């Protein structure tokens, strides 16, 4: 794999079209096996949810004081995964970072599907999923509205806004590329892509307003990268629960989200690049930047973990210090040290350029980071609830088989959509790749408009 952005880049726009759309609608054995596995996991998750709907939330093993379990842990995990896509597509667009071009479309897809997965969990956590409309402000006979002062209601607005804006940004970016697929297909496929491309034909009027709007979409999406996980962190930080009630939570959560999201981009894009032989578009140069982002955010997380302990000790509050001491030494110390190892220690080899440009090292460490970030949320959610102020209420939480099933199902659901995306939509932004190719000119020098 090349280690430079310009290495072996195709010479012509037509070559870029051909290379990127040649993989569409051509499932191979490897894709089919992964798709069957993902679909099976998803169906198992559906079955578990059916059991939960039938028998009630008790089947998930929730008992006081731990009423937020794996569903909330996995919800926060998936919201975090969804951060990297918008960071890469919006913030890196605004700062004109060149390494975004090859990886942003797949990252955006990952974001949309991760947030779709996250959105399932508040509904699953409700138990009575049919009453999900209670989340939303709607006029009713009792004039009883939702409580906008609650962080949970902020979360409803934050996640739904994030999903809507990310999905719109994703689709708008796709439109010119869908037109390319339309123009290279025939029959029913052409008709389907014609509808999806919305009659895009690359007129100056279309490009003019498109470019104007795209910048605004990026500008609107950029603050969401920082705000969404801040709002998610307030679900915890606004509660007077030892281990949660901390002002460090928003930056700590945002850094963690970018850390896990970039690691997931490596996990997904590295095999994709090898499977589709897209080395001319995504290469070690891109993965090295992603690894550097992970290193930066891993450093911020390590600092945040340390500050939490320092403040717990320095506050001389026995409850505050008690929860942090117990996290590292109590019944959940295995989860705590797994988190510390995966998030603080495992990424350290990436400080070596030789190791962070080795695909196997990149892939394996990215998996460790994904595991570590799930355990970070497990530590925050479970250990604080299991060890609250009154020692008589201290408890130990075990994940029930139904919760395992639904968590596995969520990975299947995400994989199902991501694999479908790889087969049906251009996973690399063709129009933006073309912007990085020297335009065809007949004269010896490039001619600028007067």
């Amino acid at each position: 794999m090349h280690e430079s952005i310009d290495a072996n880049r195709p010479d012509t726009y037509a070559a870029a079209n051909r290379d990127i759309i040649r993989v569409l609608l051509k499932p191979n054995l490897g894709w089919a096996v992964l798709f069957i596995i993902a679909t099976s996991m998803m169906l198992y998750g559906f079955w578990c949810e059916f059991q939960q709907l039938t028998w009630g939330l008790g089947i998930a093993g929730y008992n006081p004081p731990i009423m937020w379990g794996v569903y909330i842990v996995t919800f926060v995990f998936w919201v975090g995964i969804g951060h990297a896509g918008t960071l890469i597509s919006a913030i890196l667009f605004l700062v004109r970072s060149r390494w975004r071009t090859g990886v942003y479309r797949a990252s955006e897809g990952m974001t949309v599907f991760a947030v779709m997965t996250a959105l399932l969990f508040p509904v699953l956590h409700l138990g009575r999923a049919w009453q999900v409309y209670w989340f939303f402000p709607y006029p009713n006979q009792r004039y009883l509205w939702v409580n906008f002062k609650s962080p949970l209601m902020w979360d409803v607005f934050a996640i739904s806004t994030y999903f809507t804006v990310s999905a719109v940004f994703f689709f708008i970016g796709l439109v010119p590329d869908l037109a390319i697929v339309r123009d290279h297909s025939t029959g029913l496929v052409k008709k389907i892509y014609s509808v999806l491309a919305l009659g895009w034909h690359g007129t100056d009027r279309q490009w003019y307003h498109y470019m104007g709007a795209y910048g605004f979409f990026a500008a609107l999406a950029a603050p969401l990268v920082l705000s969404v996980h801040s709002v998610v962190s307030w679900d915890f930080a606004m509660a007077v629960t030892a281990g949660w009630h901390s002002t460090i939570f928003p930056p700590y959560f945002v850094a963690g989200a970018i850390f896990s999201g970039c690691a997931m981009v490596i996990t997904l894009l590295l095999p994709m690049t090898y499977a589709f032989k897209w080395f001319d578009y995504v290469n070690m140069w891109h993965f090295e930047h992603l690894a550097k982002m992970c290193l930066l955010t891993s450093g911020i997380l390590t600092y945040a973990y340390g500050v939490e302990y320092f403040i717990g000790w320095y506050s001389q509050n026995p409850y505050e210090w008690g929860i942090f001491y117990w996290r590292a030494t109590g019944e959940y110390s295995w989860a705590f040290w797994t988190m510390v190892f995966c998030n603080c220690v495992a990424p350290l080899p990436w400080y070596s350029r030789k190791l962070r440009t080795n695909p196997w090292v990149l892939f394996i460490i990215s998996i460790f980071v994904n595991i570590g970030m799930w355990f970070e949320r497990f530590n925050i959610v479970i250990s604080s609830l299991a060890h609250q102020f009154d020692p008589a209420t201290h408890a130990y939480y075990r994940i029930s088989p139904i919760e395992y099933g639904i968590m596995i199902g969520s990975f299947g659901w995400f994989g199902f959509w991501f694999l479908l995306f790889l087969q049906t939509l251009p996973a690399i932004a063709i129009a933006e790749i073309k912007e990085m190719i020297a335009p065809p000119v007949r004269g010896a020098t490039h001619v600028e408009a007067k």
Partner: protein
Amino acid sequence: MSAAHSEVASGTRIKGIYAHLDCLLAGIEKLKEAGISGFQVLSPLPRHEILEAVYEGRPSPVRWWTLVGGVTGINTGLLLTSLTASQWPMINPGGKPVVALPPYAVIMFECTILFGALFTLAGLIVHCGLPGFGLDKSLQDPRVSDDKFGIAFLRASAKDLERIAAILSDTGAIEITRGDDTIYEVPNA
């Protein structure tokens, strides 16, 4: 269909296809110098040189949609939270005032972004003319999504037709079509 059939009351379609960006830009400049307007440029990617040549640095009006959306959103967030709380003032969690701006700021921010994005999308659809299924077929050229550029007149006046064809040809168009008939073509271009 012959060229005569594609003539409408106000003019005739004429289109030049270019293989090179510098030739296309030269074509746009020559047309502007000749005082001929009413053309559309086709391009496989957003080149700033083309947009500069055609729009001369004018910003897209989509930005006004974004502004109106953002202002609508922040007001919607404020009114939704304040009016609903005022309607049932007995809900007073944590001793907060009935209309408490700090917690409502989160909702106002989210509504600003949401409405800003949705209005921008609406502006994009309106100004781009999407869905563009009804575009004139001379603008629907699959070569343009590949690697070619184009200049198309949907309704060129009869007095300009010859001048346009000459400019397109002189500036390096590899194919010129008038109505549905190809009148000039560079083989294997």
